[in-house]
């Protein structure tokens, strides 16, 4: 059976035009951007151009962009870098229970370093309650980190509202926008964020590249030491080929965003409608009216993640779940646990389907039919 990729929130296919700009770069532009000679200057020029494109895409200044190896590194740099550089101002950090592990595990690390971390709960719709945030803010709070879009459910968080609340608070505001970028218009001033994480491979760019936006005058430490690159915030010779591919991906998504979002939205609708038509028993996790177009998270009562994902793969459907399965251990999804309680079966019977450039409407109908066949079969078997 023809494989169908419904896992764009994990990673996306690299756009052919991205490949097209990367290959000649690998072949021809091998200079080190820090070198003073002709070869270096050429690379430096390309790096600067890329930084400009990245900055423009979020309404930022060029010098606010720090290229990193990806979203995880950018989140680490934001949290640890801010915490360390500002510990004389306070030791309290606020984040949420539904962050990506790149944030959550970093926050846990900071707790071990002596920082106090508050993890805001979420409502059943998947959003945090901004009044909870207000209640937790203290004079000791130095950083608030809330993701823009949740990677498992696609739920959009009220970033602008939070930004407004924090406008007259001393705490810095970081947002992990890895799942939002390319789907939602993001302007750092409108959002009121001081730091913003973006990753290349979620927007059809190459893996191993991302950036952290750091607002001017934000006091932040670097996590690694070496040369002068990235204003010393991220020393190490730049991944020029990756960055140039990232730049192309940004340009493409800026140009095509509306059109892409529209088609993903129709994929999502089509997918759900096909399941409904097939009379599959399912529930959508979170509030679908408050989620991005590309992601839908669906609970299939009476099934379990292991059987679902194995069966899906064997019939060519690539999807995933927030429950981490490694070597046969299933960890219930921390996001769905936060929304519905850790005992809720949704935490172990839910699948994330995420749409993207690899899909067509025919694919989506085909995929939904395969999904409904499998789910019905599994539910019947368990009933027996």
């Amino acid at each position, binding site marked *: 059976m023809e494989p169908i990729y419904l896992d764009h929130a994990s990673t996306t296919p690299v756009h052919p035009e991205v490949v097209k700009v990367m290959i000649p770069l690998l072949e021809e532009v091998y200079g080190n951007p820090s070198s003073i000679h002709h070869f270096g200057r050429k690379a430096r020029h390309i790096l600067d151009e890329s930084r400009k494109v990245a900055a423009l895409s979020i309404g930022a200044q060029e010098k606010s962009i720090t290229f990193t190896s990806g979203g995880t590194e950018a989140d680490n740099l934001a949290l640890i870098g801010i915490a360390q550089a500002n510990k004389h101002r306070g030791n309290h950090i606020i984040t949420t229970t539904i962050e990506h592990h790149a944030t959550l595990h970093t926050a846990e690390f900071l707790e071990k370093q002596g920082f106090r971390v508050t993890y805001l709960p979420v409502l059943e719709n998947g959003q945090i309650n901004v009044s909870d945030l207000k209640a937790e803010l203290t004079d000791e709070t130095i950083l608030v980190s809330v993701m823009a879009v949740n990677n498992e459910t696609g739920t959009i968080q009220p970033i602008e509202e939070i930004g407004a609340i924090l406008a007259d608070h001393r705490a810095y505001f970081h947002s992990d926008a890895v799942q939002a970028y390319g789907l939602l218009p993001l302007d750092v001033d409108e959002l009121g964020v001081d730091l913003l994480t973006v990753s290349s491979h979620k927007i059809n760019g190459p893996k191993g590249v991302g950036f952290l936006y750091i607002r001017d005058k934000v006091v932040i430490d670097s996590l690694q030491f070496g040369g002068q690159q990235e204003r010393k915030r991220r020393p190490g010779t730049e991944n020029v080929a990756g960055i140039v591919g990232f730049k192309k991906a940004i340009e493409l998504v800026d140009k095509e965003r509306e059109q892409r979002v529209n088609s993903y939205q129709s994929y999502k609708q089509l997918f759900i409608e096909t399941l409904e038509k097939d009379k599959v028993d399912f529930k959508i996790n979170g509030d679908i009216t408050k989620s991005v177009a590309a992601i839908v998270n669906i609970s299939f009562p009476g099934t379990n993640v*292991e*059987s679902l*994902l*194995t*069966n899906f*793969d*064997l019939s060519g459907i690539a999807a995933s779940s927030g429950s981490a*399965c*490694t*070597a*046969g*251990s*299933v960890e219930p999804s921390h996001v769905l646990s936060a929304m519905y309680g850790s005992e809720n079966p949704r935490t172990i019977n839910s699948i994330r389907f995420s749409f993207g450039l690899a899909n067509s409407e025919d694919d989506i109908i085909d995929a939904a039919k395969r999904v409904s066949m499998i789910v019905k*079969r*599994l539910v019947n*078997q368990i009933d027996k």
Partner: protein
Amino acid sequence: MKDKKDTRVVVGMSGGVDSSVTALLLKQQGYDVVGIFMKNWDDTDENGVCTATEDFDDVVRVCNQLDIPYYAVNFEKQYWDKVFTYFLDEYKAGRTPNPDVMCNKEIKFKAFLDHALSLGADYLATGHYAQVRKVNDKYEMLRGVDDNKDQTYFLNQLSQSVLSKVMFPLGHLPKKEVRKIASENNLATANKKDSTGICFIGERNFKEFLSEYLPAQPGKMTTLTGVEQGKHEGLMYYTIGQRQGLGIGGAGDPWFVVGKNLKENVLYVEQSFHNDHLYSDALIATDLNWINEPLEKTIDCTAKFRYRQSDSKVTVTPIEDGKVKVTFHQAERAITPGQAVVFYQGEVCLGGGTIDEIIKNEKPLDYVG
């Protein structure tokens, strides 16, 4: 019959050499092979690393070499409920359980088989050393050709319907040959050591493991006539016929466990390997499974009372409540309640049951426990 390429075979893969070669052979024969790793026990080592991760990594390597998909499935809860609970209950009752027999019956060839079928599998294959033969409309289970490796003892509880869905591709091979095939094909697991012992205990100290789950009650160690010989650390740590770990010094023949008195918490010991009290002439078995047809009349056949023991001639007679009486043609040493008794006619495994009572001179030997 379906074409091999349209016949899906799920291989239960442990990350060991046997299941790796099982997958290889089936793939070479042209089947649609799917590798699945089963996790039955939650175990984390002193560095916080889950010990299953390494085994799963080996499954990944081998499956990628063979270009077959691989997945994992978790049966920790089922294993705990069906196998480990039984294991502890038997020890509490002063018996010596056989968790491998139970694991095959309840997990590998039930929960796991169901899972495989739910994935559209036509067959489940494992690396067991045993053979399945179809005779007319019936399935027979035969010993593996490698005498030293034959695992039918552990598979005695399999039913006709299970056998109709099962493949044992290694049954006709000697272990040496399996290793050879693994290295000829450069399988990542070719030189991996065989696992030993009960799967969830691994290479750990058995006493320590058991004491985490069952409180040990030390007590007296005496001869059958009541002469005290020292202390025991808890009846569950001893099995009939055991010599090691008694700590009885002095002159004369070595000492052996001959029985247990659960009520009084006394361990019975007697001297010399061939002590008469270790011998019996019959047993009663329960939980019988007959692979081909239920036993309706007395038969002569051979039997094994422990894994890797040579066969003994016996007469098996059905008695009340589906139990059987197994009469030995020659007195047997150290028959142990809780272990499996498995019957054979030539190469064919007829089935088996659980040893429940030991009999000598037509009377139950109460002291064995």
